[in-house]
């Protein structure tokens, strides 16, 4: 995992998956399509990403194409920062 991915994974584990085994959360674990991240969690995650990585997301970027896995989130953040 990249450092961005690690930060995101830590946030997701703490905020949305308390008590879970961290080793089960991999970069390719589906988050939205598996119901781990719901609508309110999406808003919280967006807030976290925008504040932590100083980026700005658009409404249509809240979908599975961009936020469904830690890997995709990492790529989105990197693309936004580039």
């Amino acid at each position, binding site marked *: 995992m990249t450092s961005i991915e690690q930060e995101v994974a830590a946030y997701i584990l703490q905020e949305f998956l*308390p008590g879970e085994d961290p080793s089960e959360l991999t970069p390719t674990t*589906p988050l939205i399509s598996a119901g781990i991240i719901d*609508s309110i969690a*999406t808003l919280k995650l967006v807030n976290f990403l925008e504040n932590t990585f100083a980026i700005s997301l658009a409404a249509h970027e809240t979908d599975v194409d961009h936020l469904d896995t830690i890997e995709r989130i990492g790529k989105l953040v990197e693309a936004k920062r580039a």
Partner: protein
Amino acid sequence: MSKLGAAAARAASNAAQPVPLSRAKELGALAIVLAQVVLAVVVMGRLGLQSSAVRRVLLFAGAGFVIHHFLPPRYKLRFFIALSVLAMFVILGGTPHLSYPDPRIAVPRVAALLGFGCAFIGISLSRARLSVRIAALLLLTAGLAVLRSGLFDTGVLNAIWPLIAVFFMFRLIGFLYDITTSGVKPSFAQSAQYFFALPAVVATFLPVIDFKKFSTPSKEAPLLTYQRGASWIGRGALQLVVHRVVSQVYYLPQGDVRDGVDLVQFLLSNVFLYLKLSGVFHLLIGILLLFGFNLPETNSRYTLASSFTDYWRRVNIYWKDFILKVFYFPAFFKLKKRGQTFALVLSTLWAFFATWALHLYQTWWLRGTAHVSWPDTLFWTILGLLVLVNSIGEMSTTKRPAPGRKGFGPRDAFSLMLKTAGTFAAITTLWSLWNASSVGAWLALWKLFDLPALGWAALALALVMLTKLLMEILPEIRAAEKKSGPSGVPLASSLSQFNLVALVAVLLLCQPRVQHLVDHAALQPFWDASRMNDASIEGGRVAGIQNNPGYYESLATVDTPSRDLWQTFMREPLGTPYVGADPSRPVKDFRYKELLPSLKMQVYDTEIATNSFGMRGPEYTLAKPARTLRIALLGSSNVMGWGVPYDRTFGALLEQQLDAASAKSGWNVAFQVQNFAFNRYSSLGQLDVVRLRVARFSPDIVLFVAHDNDFSWLVGDIQRSIRERMALPDHVALDVLQRARVGGRTHYEFSNERLEPYRPQLVSWSYDNLSRAIRGAGALPVAVFLPTAPDIGKDSVEATEAQYAEMLSKNGFVTLRAPGVFAGHDPESLRKFDHYNPLAHSLIAEALEGLLVGDARIDLRGRAAKAGQPVSP
């Protein structure tokens, strides 16, 4: 398995290369999938679930997916479109009279559907600016709305306007949003595949399938996707079976709620009516999975939601996703600079406002009319506010550990169960408001809530808690302890096995032999439910016999604007329901309704005017004027004169003719023929007409017009009296119904069928009561049997007339015989809207005048002489 465990399993499954199967194993797996689809279709066919069109499309899918599976990838898209268009021809060419599609009907319908569809897609994909494309789409929609409004008769195309709306009304919005925000335009063929997808042609309720999810190539092994599709089809069929039982055995309409226990039954049966929508969604999405479209679930154990946000996420998931994508997130992102909470409040309220408005929009397209109602508005407002309160809470707190995870204890489990029961209670209450006729009527129901109701409600909630524990909490704890990984090929999954076993069990229980083996009166309602079909239930609704329960049921109601579409789907004639002004009001006696007094309105193409007593005709005094003979006329809509001006009804004509006869014979009396008839009054209803109305006017003669409907209407009214707990004159009728296993809610087809052997006994019972009531009012009971307008000309009329004349005579009536009243006339020349037309009325008046004047038992001359004598001071 926890959500994370399941997600990890799915990721591993997606990453793994599918193990190549031998051709024999592959064929075996496909055969198993196909067998499950066929089993679901057989069960649906046996129970008449959904229209025959839905079952045909399922068979289409069953055959098509096997071919689709073996096709090279480059042909799959074209094949799927071709199969979808072929299904359109087969389904839309259906008529009530043919078992095969009629090309003269199919071709114009499919051409119009494809034409409008291609125009919608073409405009959306064009290179024009977004505002120009939206304007063009709105213009096209407006044109379609004009056609849908019924302003013009479009012949065979009438059926498809609501269907085009189903194809495009919501998915086009999401599609346009996706292609605009992603900047990637799909090909025309990909778009056509999405919009014209096979199951859409039979869907009056189509889940708002997300274009991106539909178009994203699946990473899952195809056989697993097919199996999930077959599993969902099976689950959908089972949900429809449960819906049949709920709606036909347990459902209690609002009007039948009499006490607190009824209220609990009303609340619970109402909320489970949603199974119809959920079942249909499972079928439709299951079909798409058979073709490899890896789509998510449409509903997920919504009765086990533990909060309102959780409910919103579990029920109609596709709708929630559509609203989030197009309304909620864009609004939130626009507003979030002004604070997270502010944005959350406004975007949530905006999302629910959009949901409310789009439901009205959907209602208009499907039914041709839509009205803003307080129950509907309050339902969405309250649900929106409850979701908002939950959302604010979730926004400011961290999630609690899931069952089986560190930090999750027995107290958490109990708290989760309590929350689930609370959410279920609130949603059930809200749902009943949504389906109520008015807020006032709904509030009045709650006055009935008492201690027994509390007990039953507590029991229901305890069951919800137990179900939550057994179906969600304990399995998650067990999975966490085992650290279970991917569950392997789900062909052997417990859910599929349950579906299969349950479907086979349903099929067995539908067999008359099995039903005969476990024959018991308490099981009769279930056996009756198994013998119904959705077409006859809809037919009953058209005839006003069946109740029309929930919101989604009412959306599928067959009314004039949607009748052509339903006839196409069901291939059965559904009749023409009357749509127009209602000149009646409900009453709490066996008449159940009466004409409004002092009324003047246009009904059934005729002006209906009533006097202050609610009768068609002139104003009367209660006291009989001197030198007057009064005849009270009892009957139903044919006697009342639906569709005929009052002065051309046989009652009014008879009065004129009797007056003329009186003048000619020098009787020196005037006649008053008072018309007490009204639509669908049964011979039981006539009892209250006599007691409550006729007796006050002191008539000399009461002329009752009987017809063959007396039996079925009498049965219907006795059943209603059971439901409404009204006391019948004695136990005779109830004893007969009990012997025939007919209860208050037995479907009219079965009650008539099982009571047919008791027809003479029941009808005679009502005639005897009626003649005695008439004599009690001091009048002479006279009766005549006349065939109803639809029965005129039928071969059986003569025998029926003789049978009824005998029953009337034996039960105290002076019976007049007019079997040849319509002889020599073409039956069609005597009808209007299934009722007598003016010509029929004039023939009846002429016949009755002759019979009344010439009958010595009635002795009009003697009565006239008595009435004509000067009254002693």
